[in-house]
């Protein structure tokens, strides 16, 4: 937080002490899963795993934009709920497969509005993002419930579920390729490019690190902050499309995802108060979260024990990451 003047050289210094521990964690977890269950090495094994993690990974990548800018977005889960149960299925009660082509843009439009409101409230009304998005979360859940009446009114048509469920088969080398994995790669790349290869990404880091300094340096703080919330809300919609496609729609689909997304970012080494974070590491964080879940499932521990272990691994991973950073001079 205090060394913003040295932003440039730090990048190289951070790379030098070694890789981000999240990658080590992911590799270790995946290896453990593979040892426990060799079938995981088959394409159906790991592709299913990636397919499962796609929604959370994309969501976390988007949530990272807000985290790096120094805020939180707790409304992503409810954005998923609203757009999926209300727009996706309730308004699609006719189950017309062709409506997917206008329903997804409509959902994205709603995401855009939600993100804009979040950003405007945080930037201009100066409501702390934690509260602003918490309020948004409660509001959206209420709207979703009001509209759906407590139960989805229709199914998601197969054209809609394509993104989360369909596998392209007979692909050379890997056999099957889930569409969700393609989405993950495409959106992951876009998010990575936006954050790490553009001037916008640097401004995002700057306002999270020290908004005053950023403003004095000519960064349009308000606009950058608002855009971060917009990115987050849009990725929430995209993640929702994949999640709904994977499992089908339920009334409270998406609830709890806001905290998982933040957890994934933190495991990936993002700093909760802003100024630091990496999209690939966050996606790895999401992989790690899901891998812990899968591994503990494979070991066959009873669920209560599993929750305890899951919690301890989470705390341990973040503590280790923080310790490593300290030692490396961050």
């Amino acid at each position, binding site marked *: 937080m205090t060394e913003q003047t040295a932003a440039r050289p730090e990048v190289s210094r951070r790379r030098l002490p070694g890789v981000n521990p999240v990658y080590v964690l992911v590799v270790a977890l995946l290896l453990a899963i593979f040892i426990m269950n060799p079938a995981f090495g088959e394409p159906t094994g790991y592709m299913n795993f990636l397919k499962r993690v796609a929604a959370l990974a994309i969501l976390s990548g988007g949530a990272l934009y807000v985290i790096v800018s120094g805020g939180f977005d707790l409304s992503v889960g409810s954005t998923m709920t609203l757009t999926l149960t209300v727009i996706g299925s309730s308004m699609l009660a006719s189950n017309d497969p062709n409506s997917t082509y206008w329903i997804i843009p409509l959902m994205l439009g709603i995401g855009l509005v939600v993100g804009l409101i979040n950003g405007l409230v945080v930037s201009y009304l100066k409501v702390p993002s934690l509260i602003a998005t918490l309020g948004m979360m409660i509001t959206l859940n209420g709207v979703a419930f009001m509209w759906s009446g407590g139960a989805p009114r*229709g199914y998601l048509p197969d054209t809609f579920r394509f993104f989360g469920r369909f596998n392209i088969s007979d692909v050379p080398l890997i056999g099957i390729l889930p569409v969700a994995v393609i989405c993950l790669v495409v959106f992951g790349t876009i998010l990575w490019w936006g954050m790490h290869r553009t001037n916008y990404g640097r401004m995002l880091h700057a306002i999270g690190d020290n908004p005053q300094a950023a403003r004095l340096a000519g960064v349009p703080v308000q606009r950058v902050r608002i855009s971060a919330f917009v990115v987050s809300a849009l990725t929430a919609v995209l993640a929702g499309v994949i999640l709904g496609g994977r499992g089908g729609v*339920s009334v409270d689909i998406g609830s709890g995802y806001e905290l998982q997304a933040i957890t994934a970012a933190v495991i990936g080494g993002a700093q909760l108060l802003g100024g630091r974070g990496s999209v690939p590491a966050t996606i790895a964080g999401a992989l790690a979260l899901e891998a812990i879940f899968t591994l503990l499932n494979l070991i066959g521990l009873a669920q209560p024990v599993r929750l305890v272990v899951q919690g301890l691994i989470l705390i341990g991973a973040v503590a280790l990451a923080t310790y490593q950073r300290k030692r490396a001079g961050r």
Partner: protein
Amino acid sequence: MKKTLLAVAILGMLTGSAFAQAPNFDDPAEFAKQREQLTATFNGPADQPYLQYAGDAMVDTTEFKKEGPWTVCFSNAGVNNPWRVVGYTNMTEEVKLHPEIGTFTHVDAEGSDDKQIADIDDLLAGGNCDALIVSPNSTAALTPAVEKACAAGLPVIVFDRGVTTDCPVTFVHPVGGYGFGIQAADHIIANVPAGGNVLMLRILPGVDVLETRASGARNMFAEAGLTVLGEEFTDGDNAKTKSIVEDYLQRGTIDAVWMDAGATAVAAVEAFEDQGVDIPVVTGEDQQDYLQKWRDLGFKGIAPTYPSYQWRTAVIAAVNTLKGEQVPGPEWVLPQPAITQDVLDQYINEKMPPLHYAMCGCEDMETYPEAWGGTK
């Protein structure tokens, strides 16, 4: 060292007391009783299951007889899941059939014990209710509130989850949780060879009507020599359900999936479908999406029900009480049929929403299907 000892002691006390307080969800006598009731003959009109009742015990209600129009009050645990949405619709439509009910006051506790206790207090303080219907959020917490209402001289009708007092006029409920578990487990035992693997999927721990579903089935699987691969809580989340089943599939074969509630049954079926594995026995419940999936894929399904028509019965019980007519009681036990392959088609209605519960006993009402979100 001392600290550790202290910690262990506290932990021991905590777990000890938790066990001491845990209600008994594995009661052989109740299990046997419900098993019998599943196949028993019920009194009442055959085509109106919501009017049927087990046994002959009746309660005299002349003391509550009153001239209409009445104000009937309803303290609802919540409308927080699709089953309750269907049930509440049944109820409001039933109310419309009784012109004697001048006012129907509904207060929604939104799933909170505290709010429901306060709700009942408010209703009593208001002094307008002629009868009180309660669908308790939880058994122990709501008992004093129900007792208070009885003491105020109101006729009280309890339905769905129970309370531990016999002061209400009657307690309307279907056969029960053990019965649900038995129907699903019987079907699995009949269709899976001994030594087969059963995965038990549950929504969440700690709810009496769900715990009894699981405990009954668990004992039956043990007796039948089936292996229970695991008991997993899905939180009613489709994506999580699918992940859990996929993970178990990676570890080995699954011969049957037992579910304590059907909301995520389709997700479990899809896990097999998407892996290209034959779909084994997967039990569900009477909601449309499962029934249709079952028909379309032709696996060995069964849909035990927890009939939502009990929401109608509660209103009828209140009306009969205020008329001073006899009411089945102190427990009005409703039939709890399971939908089997033979009768599957008659419960499927593609014009209804996916989470409409088919065993609603509502098809004979004029506003069906529109009021339930369906189309003619």
